[in-house]
């Protein structure tokens, strides 16, 4: 045992370290009042633009847990072009791990199906509100989310976003 030990230097050093932090700035963010800005690449809730979706089923096949369920039918546009119309596009959100693979395989990444919406407050009062998203919810939910929060943040706004969500869904096969 050294003389230094008798003076409790080690203990005093610890006390000094903790009290040093006492007056310092605190790191807590008071959540509901203040929110952290999410970076552009943040993987939030899905947003689907069903009109530009090619119906190529790449996302459905790539999803590691097979939670994207799609049905498509072929259609010829008035201009004579062949295209696929998405009748069903469901994502079983409750099982999704937000890995982003579906987004990364989508042709023209980020335009059709995207996770980069910066939205994360998806707690819901109704039990089935945020469990299973169908075509309509996928299209509108995020737009509504940001509309309720005063519009899209600039760094996240997709080019086709309109603030009252104006997207018109293509008719499904049985409707046509």
């Amino acid at each position: 045992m050294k003389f230094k030990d008798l003076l409790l230097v080690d203990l005093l050093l610890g006390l000094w370290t903790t009290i040093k932090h006492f007056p310092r700035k605190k790191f807590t963010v008071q959540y509901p009042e203040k929110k952290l800005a999410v970076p552009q690449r943040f993987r939030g809730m899905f947003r689907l633009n069903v009109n530009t979706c090619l119906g190529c089923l790449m996302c459905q096949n790539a999803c590691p847990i097979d939670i994207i369920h799609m049905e498509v039918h072929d259609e010829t546009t008035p201009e004579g072009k062949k295209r696929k119309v998405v009748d069903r596009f469901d994502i079983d959100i409750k099982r999704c791990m937000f890995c982003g693979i579906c987004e990364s395989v989508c042709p023209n990444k980020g335009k059709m199906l995207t996770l980069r919406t910066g939205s994360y407050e998806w707690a819901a009062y109704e039990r089935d509100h945020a469990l299973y998203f169908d075509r309509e919810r996928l299209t509108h939910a995020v737009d509504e989310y940001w509309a309720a929060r005063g519009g899209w943040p600039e760094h996240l706004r997709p080019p086709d976003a309109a603030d009252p969500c104006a997207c018109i869904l293509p008719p499904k096969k049985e409707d046509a």
Partner: protein
Amino acid sequence: MSPELLSWMSPELLNWVVIPAVKTAVILAIVLTIVAYATLLERKVLAYIQARVGPNRAGPKAILQPLADGFKLMSKEDLVPDGAMRFLHLLAPILIMVPALAIFAFIPMGDTTTLFGLLEEPVPIFVADLNVAVLFVIGFAGLGLYGVVLGGWASNSKYSLLGALRSAAQIVSYEVPQALALIGVLVLAGSMSLVRIVEAQREMGVWFAFPGFLAFFIYFVCGVAETNRNPFDLPECESELVNGYFTEYSGVKFALFYMAEYANILVVSCLSTILFLGGWLPPFPSLAVWQHLPSLPLFWFLAKVFVFIFFYIWVRATFPRYRFDQLMGLMWKWMLPLALANLILLALVKLWLLK
């Protein structure tokens, strides 16, 4: 309050029943409020030390947090585990709370007060000035152990049992050096009455913390052990024994255990203040300045107690926890010889310096 109003009472009734009862009620109210807010203080100070803000939602600056905690705990279901001894399970939190509060009867928070001139005769700010108060305090503090041991035993849980065992081992280790440290103070003061001890510090013009710095240190360390606080929170350390002896408690009983911890901290802080920091005396009581300033006994007393409580919290935030054999080693191998040496030292000091 004018004397006529009280004139229907016989002086015996007044002096022996009414005034002590009123004082007891007032002191209980003060103590329980301090205890409740000590929990808030602890959470706030810990939070500030740990770079966070702590509770800040219940009322402005979390003023209502203790109330909210109280309501929460009271509305919880009172669970008694299967196979527990119901009576002892109920008795334990009471046994730990009552002695902790009883000690406050002997703690002088100031000498006398006239309540800003309301009373004609000054009334002492303590319930009883016992001539063997120190013995009483040590005794009552020891009684708290029964609460811990019974709680651990009656819960029918192995973790609680281990906590109780540790607590029993802990108390035999810290009580001896603690008592020896106190004897040093008694030697200096020449009395066992807490009021006399403070008076003695006034007469000698020096806080006992200076001549008795070793005793002060030992008493503080043992006090941490007595209140089961980090770094000696072995009976309840949550990372080993879940919650030690009160693992199986919930609701109001849990609240009692929880409050008893803070009541004990308050006891130890008050005693340290009285024994070593001159109780309600201002710093360096012999200085001439104090003659010209109003004497604020309650202010000085509470300020010193606050410093102690803060230090407790600060220590808790800083240190890791001792192992229970290491605690016993520390107490028996270091604190006990130190306390004995200190006793001799203080006796010599008393003999030659502070006649």
